């Protein structure tokens, strides 16, 4: 127990920085994932076969492959393929940016599925009524269907936020010094306290995720009340 508090206190500053990086990476990814999710979610429910196919391939590929492999494809693979154009991850923020890209693309696919589910859960009559008044498909989506879908999707979206936050730990593999990578570095320098260090790392994740799910509960209650 003493070692635990020792680790907690002595490494507090590096973990604080790492935590910041983790949260930053998660937040940025989730913002981009939401945008990607809305676009591909709309592709999936559209009548256009080409758009449907594109989103089908994207979602199928992401769901059928591990995030770690996706990260390697983006960080190492893209770097190699794009080298002739002068592209370097270093020039645009290094592994951190690559991590955000990988997480965004990964979570975006899951968000697309959540958004598709939310849209499909809205009664078809809502769209029909809007269209019968002369509203375009886009107007009806924006004003009627998406706002209604948002409420039903909220729990799933927050769940995805929590998953993505934990998935940031995989980005440690390309050298981003987020919580997990920081744990590795601290553990390498204090090999007798390995258990305590990893418990500390777990605790940081636990705290952030708990806060997130608490906020989620409050938001959920607020919006369901407003309906």
């Amino acid at each position, binding site marked *: 127990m003493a070692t635990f508090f020792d680790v907690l206190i002595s490494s507090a500053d590096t973990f604080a920085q790492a935590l910041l990086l983790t949260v930053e990476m998660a937040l940025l990814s989730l913002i981009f994932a939401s945008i990607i999710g809305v676009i591909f979610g709309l592709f999936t429910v559209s009548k256009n076969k080409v758009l449907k196919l594109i989103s089908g391939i994207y979602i199928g590929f992401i769901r059928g492959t591990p995030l770690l492999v996706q990260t390697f494809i983006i960080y190492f693979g893209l770097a190699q393929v794009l080298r002739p154009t002068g592209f370097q991850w270093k020039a645009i923020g290094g592994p951190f940016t690559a991590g955000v890209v990988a997480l965004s693309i990964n979570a975006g696919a899951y968000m697309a599925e959540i958004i598709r589910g939310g849209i499909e859960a809205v*009664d078809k*009559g*809502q769209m*029909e*009524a*809007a*269209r*019968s*008044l*002369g*509203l*375009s498909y886009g*107007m009806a989506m924006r*004003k*009627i269907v998406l*706002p*209604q879908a948002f409420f039903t999707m909220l729990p799933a979206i927050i769940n995805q936020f929590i998953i993505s936050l934990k998935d940031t730990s995989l980005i440690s593999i390309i050298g981003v010094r987020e919580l997990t990578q920081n744990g590795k570095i601290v553990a390498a320098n204090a090999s007798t306290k390995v258990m305590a260090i990893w418990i500390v790392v777990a605790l940081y994740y636990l705290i952030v995720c708990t806060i997130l799910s608490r906020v989620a509960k409050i938001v959920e209650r607020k919006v369901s009340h407003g*309906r």
Partner: protein
Amino acid sequence: MADKSRKSQEVKIKVEGLNKCFGELEVLKSMDMEVKEGEVVCLIGPSGSGKSTFLRCLNRLEEANAGKICIDGQVMTDKKININKARENIGMVFQHFNLFSNLTILDNITLAPVMLKKMTKEEAKEKALELLERVGLREKADAYPSQLSGGQKQRCAIARSLAMNPDVMLFDEPTSALDPEMVGEVLDVMKELAEEGMTMVIVTHEMGFAREVADRIYFMDDGYIVEQGTPDEIFNHTKESRTISFLNKVL
């Protein structure tokens, strides 16, 4: 009873050879119909006879496979027309009301006129309150649809359609999802509309209403129009055996 003297001879809705299939199933088989300005036409017939599908083809919520639909000079079946613009002129009332559940009653009514730039916000609000007054729901303006009874929802849905100042109104079994005690309040609103000379096509199972308000009744069965005529012709001097057997079951 609708005032016959006000009806002109202008044809508002003309349907020729309308055909609609769902996969292999042919639900509408060469339908023809003509509705003159100010006329009230009721479509009756057994469930599954294609009445609702026919109505939904009129504003192209369903795409017809063949045939021509002309409403107010617009060829609805022409793929090149601006369908959204055309629909502004055709109100539709649904069996399940389909009020926008994320909006207040007032916003339900003002949404389309404002978004489609038919009115300013203020004009739309004024018009909405006027319409709500007319259907007896003025005090519900700020309520959400979930706080209304079925009959109130349907009256509000009618007001929402009327806010666009349509020339034609389509009703798809407007009272079928209502508790019996609420049917009357909705039919009263529709009756008033008919008296004001609105051109209406109504799919209904309310035979009493059809008899009283309709100028003409179409009896449909199995994707065909079996018989059409005035309420008197249909109810008292039925010619077709299929119509007779249907009416015997429902009356």
